[in-house]
């Protein structure tokens, strides 16, 4: 199971990198979304995958899943949700103001030699 997850994470990172290297701003944002998905899956996998056990710390539980990675993912998901929402709004505003979503045309600083 961990091996399979490693491949899934690898594919997510790969697609994220590909998307982030493209010129369109929207694709870049989708890329950051995939990148954080990959990172979240990685936390889950790194905590060790167990089938059919609840994350409970009972005294006599025969087996339980580690609850910490789940707590971490929850936090990380909320944060990446917030950042992605902000990024999307910013992209829209930048598109309105700059008239382009092409990263090639957003280079340089005006008024500066």
């Amino acid at each position: 199971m961990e091996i399979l997850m490693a491949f899934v994470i690898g594919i997510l990172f790969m697609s994220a990198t590909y998307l982030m290297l493209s010129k369109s701003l929207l694709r870049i944002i989708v890329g950051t979304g995939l990148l954080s998905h990959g990172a979240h899956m990685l936390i889950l996998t790194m905590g060790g995958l167990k089938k059919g056990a609840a994350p409970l710390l009972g005294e006599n539980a025969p087996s339980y899943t580690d609850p910490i990675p789940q707590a971490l993912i929850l936090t990380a998901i909320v944060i990446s949700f917030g950042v992605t929402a902000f990024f999307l709004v910013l992209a829209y505003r930048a598109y309105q103001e700059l008239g382009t979503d092409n990263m090639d045309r957003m280079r340089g600083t005006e008024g500066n030699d």
Partner: protein
Amino acid sequence: MINFLILPILIPLVTGVLLIFAAKRIMLQRWIAGISSVIAIIFSALLVQKVRARGIQTLDVSSWEAPFGITLVSDMMSALLVLTTSIIAFLCLIYSFWSIGEAREKFYYYAAFNFLIVGVNGAFTTGDIFNLFVFFEVMLMASYVLLVLGGKKAQLRESIKYILVNVISSALFVIAVAYLYSVVGTLNMAHISVRISEASQGTPPGIITVIAVLFLIVFGLKGAIFPLYFWMPGSYYAPPAPVLALFGALLTKVGVYSITRTYTLFFYHDTGFTHQLLSFLAIMSIIAGVIGAIAYWDIKKIIIYNIIIAVGAILFGVSAMTTDSLTGSIFYLIHDMIIKAALFLLAGIVIAIAGTSNLHKISGLIKRYPGLGWTFFISALALAGIPPLSGFVGKLLIVKGGFEAEHYWGAGIVLMSSLLVLFSIMKVFINGFWGTPRAYKGEDKVPVGKMLIAPVILVIIAVFYGVGSEYVYPYISQAAETLANPEIYIEAVLKEY
């Protein structure tokens, strides 16, 4: 159980929330923000005294005991940095009153400002690696808002790049924490240190080195070290002066603090590869920063490149890992926060007067604004580390530590860089302040006197920090003691170990 050390985080948080509701009433916002940051300064000063008297303070949040819950830890280094942050925040705040403009004030400038301080103080105080990530994100979120507030074309364009870089580095941070968790099975920093010691038995396994380098990349991106500083000159160029001062004085220093913390607490067992790498990157940062600072003819750019030089000097001291060099690094870190804030605020006044940051178009300012000129001159000398001003002691100790650790080349380059720093900042002084005075459009509207209050106070602090280093030294050396001997930190947090 002492709840004292959460106050520097809690006060700006509550203030920030309050300010959201008072958004349209500017005077009320100013008063609330000003008073709360004075209170924050008082409490952080008391915290420093407490740490001095009683050693490291810890707080187990919600009374979950140390390795299991989130622990806040205030050792001398973090207490001093929190105090410096509070002072700089207050001064940037009063500078903002006369320079930031009504439009920004009405659109949650002060709220975002306070949330930024929450993140910075939290990152300095937390003793939990994932909590550090969370405070990083709090700080970054606020910095996105501050960077883009105003919505000029340059700001929008640079914000996109800044956010993209930081999203990637946050993802790397999560990945690094995940790897670390899979190896050591804990998130408490002191506990991680113990577990790594147990796992390594002399030489740490290769995976620890990989994690160390990952952390270096993550924090290096925030702290702007050599190959990873590429985003900084562009992004920091966009926002107005007080925001720039906050970013330049605080944000990069959080990255530097995190590198220092992780490299002295987690990865100190086998310094062969990781600290060599850190030392190499520190030297390269100094060189790259010096090249940038000399090459540009733009007052903002020159000071921004000086941040990179300072980061290099501080991290060189950390990489040498002797008590002397660590003392020097902390000394220099605090000096640099104060003096960079002062320089950015002064540069902000110059830009407000001249309407441009291009040095070719500015001259003769000292004639009409002698106060501004002299303040700039003193802070320039302090930046370069002319004795007895504040940069001197720190650099002296860093170089001494470098020689002790037999990094002769590195220490030599740190020394050489001081000269070039002096040259780069004197270039600003000679071109901007000497020469024939010019008339600038709209300069009469600039409240130079009021705007000078904050930088003058900062420069006075910097002068006292240098002249009175005898009185500051015991505090700094206590901080370095904890860094050089991680057992002190571990014992304070985990008690039973």
